[in-house]
């Protein structure tokens, strides 16, 4: 009997310990905190980029210095799981106090009252002003005339190229006179089948690929203010045709199948591709790769009928149900300040949103012409999004595959996609 009792007690102890183990993953900071002082407030700051963590941590440390009694816990959740976790947290009322917001998901969160309105705070505070950030970024986080985030950074798309391949073929580097025809011409000069080198990788990507081309041709993905698909516009169809021709007609780009097997950026860093479009957030792919560290460089995108690049920016938002709104607002204010943005830039995290703080980011790696990314913000087009984006993006995905592999004609594909997209967009018109 005693033996049995001992066994029961031990197994219950194990059960308790395993339950505590499960529970403590998220709250270890609180336990730590309670040891320090009962008045300390701990804010959780949710982010998804491990590369940017040092910069975020540095900003949090500086904030803690300036605000004794408030601690900030930076929690990184990889991109693939970030939104799932956030949604589960939102449904359960346990969102982080402050967290990164992305234009793809902003509307959903704003409409369901998951975010704290911060526009009034910015208006009332003499030290804060939305004029400090690019207008387009501020608008991205506006809903029903109210603001729900303070811009954190922006990213643009640039043209990256391999200087060595250009030197070997004795072709001058890309500059600001380049247009679509020049791009095709040079790509043809650089494509060398015997060496297995492609002139330009026409990546199957929207933000880093053909969206830029669409807007350069004065087409659109969603017609402004109309909530209608822009895919049936002749300008858009023409643009997608240009992108597809690079693969199928001019043969200066690897095929869709090849770019699926090996990602375009992997092809670029292995020296198999001379040029491609790339987002500014991917800089570390170039700086950490031995092959391309020395030979890569960046230029502004060539122009079509006009200059355009897709830009996007993250925002910092506060959970509507946060237990510490005053402290969270203080932290948000700090994150939007010039000082914080400079810290962000120094750590090479991302191009900071605050006007005039981009210089440290550009100096972060002087080998590359990082200025090209910042310069293009002047003609940037905000990354198109809408409430039902996660539905029509799937239709887009399907047609992209068919058009870029030549299975259906571009005109057919675009028109069919426009129809399906309009079905989803129609549900948004209330």
């Amino acid at each position, binding site marked *: 009997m005693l033996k049995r009792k001992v066994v*029961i007690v031990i197994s219950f102890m194990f059960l308790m310990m395993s339950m505590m183990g499960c529970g403590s993953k998220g709250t270890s900071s609180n336990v730590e905190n309670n040891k320090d002082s009962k008045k300390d407030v701990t804010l959780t700051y949710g982010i998804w980029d491990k590369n940017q963590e040092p910069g975020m941590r540095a900003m949090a440390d500086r904030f803690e210095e300036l605000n004794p009694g408030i601690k900030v816990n930076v929690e990184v959740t990889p991109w693939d799981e970030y939104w799932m976790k956030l949604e589960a947290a*939102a449904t359960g009322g346990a969102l982080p106090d402050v967290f990164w917001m992305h234009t793809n998901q902003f509307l959903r969160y704003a409409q369901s009252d998951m975010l704290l309105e911060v526009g009034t705070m910015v208006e009332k505070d003499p030290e804060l002003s939305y004029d400090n950030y690019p207008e387009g970024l501020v608008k991205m986080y506006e809903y029903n005339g109210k603001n729900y985030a303070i811009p954190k950074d922006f990213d643009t798309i640039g043209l990256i190229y391999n200087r060595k391949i250009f030197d070997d073929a004795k072709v001058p580097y890309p500059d600001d006179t380049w247009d679509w025809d020049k791009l095709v011409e040079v790509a043809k000069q650089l494509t060398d089948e015997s060496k297995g080198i492609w002139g330009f990788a026409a990546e*199957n990507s929207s933000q880093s690929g053909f969206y830029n081309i669409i807007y350069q041709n004065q087409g659109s993905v969603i017609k402004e203010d109309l909530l209608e698909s822009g895919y049936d516009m002749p300008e858009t169809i023409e643009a997608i045709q240009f992108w597809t021709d690079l693969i199928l007609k001019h043969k200066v780009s690897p095929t869709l199948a090849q770019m*699926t*097997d090996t990602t375009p950026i992997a092809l670029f860093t292995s020296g198999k591709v001379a040029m491609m479009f790339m987002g500014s957030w991917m800089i570390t792919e170039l700086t950490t790769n031995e092959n391309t560290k020395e030979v890569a460089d960046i230029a502004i995108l060539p122009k079509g009928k006009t200059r355009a690049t897709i830009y996007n920016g993250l925002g910092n938002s506060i959970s509507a149900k946060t237990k510490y709104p005053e402290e969270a607002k203080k932290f948000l204010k700090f994150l939007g300040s010039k000082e914080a943005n400079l810290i962000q830039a120094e750590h090479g995290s991302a191009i900071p949103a605050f006007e005039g703080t981009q210089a440290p980011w550009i100096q972060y790696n002087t080998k590359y012409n990082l200025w090209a990314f910042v310069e293009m913000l002047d003609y940037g087009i905000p990354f198109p999004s809408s409430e039902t984006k*996660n539905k029509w993006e799937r239709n887009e*995905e399907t047609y992209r595959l068919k058009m870029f*592999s030549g299975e259906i004609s571009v005109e057919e594909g675009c028109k069919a996609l426009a129809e399906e997209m309009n079905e989803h967009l129609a549900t948004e018109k209330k």
Partner: protein
Amino acid sequence: MKQSIEALKPAQGKKIKNSWRNKKNCSNYIWAYLMVAPTIIGLMILNIWPVIRTAYLSFTETASFGSNKWIGLENYKTLFRDSIIWKATWHTFQFTILVVPLGIFLSLVIAALLNAKIKGTTIYRTIYFLPVVVAPAAIAIVWKWLFNADFGLINHMLSAVGLKGPNWLTNSKWAMFSLSIVGIWSTLGYNMIILLAGLQGIPRSYYEAAEIDGAGSIRQFFNITIPLISPTLFFVTITGLMGAIQQFDLVYMMIGPGNPAIESTQTLLYLFYRSGFVVNDKGFASAIVMWAFLLILIITFIQFILQKKWVFYE
């Protein structure tokens, strides 16, 4: 009358012996329930309750952040009208047909070979079992590189003998076949170990008797091994089928949405993931998974009926 009372007494005695009224039994039963309680509670909370909840969700239209609206059979109507779902059902069956029979047959052959008294059986068994303990993500990454059309090892070896290898993962005709190869490879070890255990339960005396009677090894295999291992084979077939119908990770990690071959390899559970976590339509996703559940139920039920025909219980 007295006789009938006498007749009753032993039965009553038995009753008391096993019933709760007996104090000794009572305490035994309580300990028993306490011992299984942690597992049962865990099972209830983490397995049974989610199943019930998913079934409920399949009859609702889920909006953002948990507000659900009961819509009855609407999700199922959309489900069965969608040709993509039917194609996915077919792809799921394709995968199952390619992986399960061949996989189990190969596992059985290997198990039989490893049951022999040869040197180094432990090493061989370890090698064959290793794929089972390797993380699926690692398997996907390595095999993706092996199958790479331009730079992968398989096509490289084929070109050394003058053959041009196909686009294993990006060609609609080859993609499902490639996934099946990885599917068989990764489950061989698991089935093998179970079948090996079953084989070791067959008394040597049967084989010796057969040898004396002049039966060759192939005859012995089909007339002794297979009947006596049929219960184990039955178990392995059922679990194999259940697993194959739930195929998701290989499609998600080796093919994925940007791949031109995705339309010819999407399985039901891949569509469940896409619907539930990318498009955020959890009601529809629940309906998809209920459909997969029903398929598994039907196939398992058929198996249990067929059991009487081919499984030999001693």
